[in-house]
């Protein structure tokens, strides 16, 4: 199947990033406009109630969705390239589950203090995510080969064990602690004020940049690991760096918004489908599209019910689950010649 000639990379990159930036701007506009409380934007300057609603609730929430969506999608894209597995993402690899477990332990122990202004829960979640990545990688890797089946299976099992551990913690806790975990587990993008967003960005921003800086290496790894090794990529170092960065990114997002599934899986696929396989496009593209996607999913979650709102994880799950199955089916086309 031959197709139209390939555009040069800078042109493709420019086209992809401009389209996705426009998408993100549009999504943000929709996210800011939509909500149960109708907002009169013309009264934003004069009406203090409208101003509080907008700046303390609506805007932070949209920004939160943006940060988390971007984070999950960019880590998903990186993990898919690293493991050369189209079904890899923070959720299927157990990273989210591990993060959730780490965060629950911190919540259960009442460790609500901050380190350098950053809630300790973030660090606990990061550690949990790292532990999960380490476990999954160790189990799935025999010698120099990562077995794709074993990778996803061990990811699923690590997720299940984490969920069971969180459940056990809840039963061991006194009712108030259990409720704290439960409320956090449901996952919500609700946030009051801009300050928490800033604290998250403090960790996420550098991690995003570091991941984007690895995009050439990840591009070569996605094509072939051996070849990457002879093209100047330090494969071991790159592996470790991507694992650490994804654990940090996913850990922080899980600690802040709970485990939101499938964003990291379907967004990179959509970007690849639209703009090709080059990781130097897929990584920044996933960042932008992931942000837009979760902002829109959250907007939908806020207005889906006549009263109250759906958890955003339910929306991404309902969209992502079928997408995952479709990819599983399509995977034959990837691997079978």
């Amino acid at each position, binding site marked *: *199947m*031959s*197709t*139209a*000639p*390939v555009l*040069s*990379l*800078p042109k493709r*990159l420019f086209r992809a990033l401009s389209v996705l930036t426009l998408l993100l701007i549009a999504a943000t506009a929709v996210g800011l406009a939509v909500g149960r409380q109708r907002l009169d934007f013309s009264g934003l300057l004069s009406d203090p109630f409208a101003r509080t609603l907008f700046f303390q609730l609506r805007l932070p929430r949209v920004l939160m969705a943006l940060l988390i969506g971007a984070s999950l999608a960019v880590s998903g894209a990186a993990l898919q390239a690293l493991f*050369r*597995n*189209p079904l890899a993402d923070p959720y299927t690899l157990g990273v989210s589950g591990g993060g959730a477990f780490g965060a629950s332990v911190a919540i259960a122990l009442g460790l609500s203090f901050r380190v350098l202004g950053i809630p300790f829960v973030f660090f606990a979640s990061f550690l949990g995510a790292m532990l999960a990545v380490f476990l999954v990688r160790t189990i799935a890797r025999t*010698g120099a080969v990562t077995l794709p089946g074993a990778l996803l299976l061990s990811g699923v099992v690590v997720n299940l064990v984490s969920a069971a551990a969180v459940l056990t913690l809840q039963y061991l806790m006194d009712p108030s602690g259990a409720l704290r975990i439960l409320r956090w587990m449901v996952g919500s993008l609700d946030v009051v004020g801009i300050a928490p967003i800033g604290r998250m960005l403090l960790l996420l921003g550098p991690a995003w940049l570091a991941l984007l*800086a690895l995009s*050439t290496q990840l*591009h*070569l790894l*996605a*094509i*072939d690991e*051996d*070849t990457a*090794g*002879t*093209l*100047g*990529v*330090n494969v071991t170092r790159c592996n470790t760096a991507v694992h650490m960065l994804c654990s940090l990114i996913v850990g922080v997002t899980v600690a802040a918004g709970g485990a939101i599934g499938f964003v990291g899986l379907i967004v990179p696929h959509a970007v*690849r489908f639209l703009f*090709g*396989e*080059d990781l*130097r496009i897929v990584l920044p593209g996933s960042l932008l599209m992931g942000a837009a996607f979760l902002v829109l999913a959250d907007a939908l979650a806020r207005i889906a019910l006549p009263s109250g709102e759906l958890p955003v994880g339910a929306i991404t799950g309902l969209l992502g689950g079928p997408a995952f199955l479709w990819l599983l089916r399509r995977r034959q*086309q*990837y*691997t079978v*010649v």
Partner: protein
Amino acid sequence: MKPFFEARHLAYTYPRGPLAVRDISLSVARASMTAVIGANGSGKSTFIRMLAGLLRPSAGEILLDGLALAKWPPRLRAREIAFMPQATATVFPFRVLDVVLSGRTPHVPQFRLENEADREKAMQALESAGAAHLADRYVTALSGGEKQMVTLARALAQEPRLLLLDEPSTSLDLKHRAALMRTLARLREQRGLSIVMVTHDLQLTGSLFDSIVALTCGEVTAQGRPDEVLQSDLLARVYGEPNVRARRIGDQTLVWIEA
């Protein structure tokens, strides 16, 4: 001519495995062609993967321009040595041209993208490998032989001094096998490219190669000019097959199995 690439007394042991390779030495001069032959499991791939820098020798040293291979910054090393693995299983549907372009990475400054000149070099490499017609196809939709041609093109796009090939001709048909050998011979003439090739294709080795290394169970059985190594009794020992025969006709060597 003085060798620029040397392997001295290399040994390799896989973790929890037996010794795969012991005491192999090899020196490569500019514009030379060396074949590595041996039965399956004799350590050929292990050996060439060490030369490519993918495996770190358990003992011995590899020198490129007198400097230990492990001390070379990976990017600089990648400008000197290219490796064509036995098979590449790319999972994602990359375009052929993009895969070949990835061979330009060691020459592209970090955090830059490949430019028009790199694209042209990638196209030339595809032409050299006889695969220009595949440029816009998806690698995942190619046959085994076509994939090998693309992998060769990627290695050529690296513009190395030393090209390492691990059984490049296994899934190539007769025409592309001939094309591969012609391309390698031409690059040796034009660019002074040196080649080390693991192969089962003894017919290929007779006329073009300067030297042959024959391995048995990870050790060198014979090393020298083709007419010295390609001999019936020696090959019988290398492959553990008593009925193998070799005969020199002009500057060609014919190898066959007597029924």
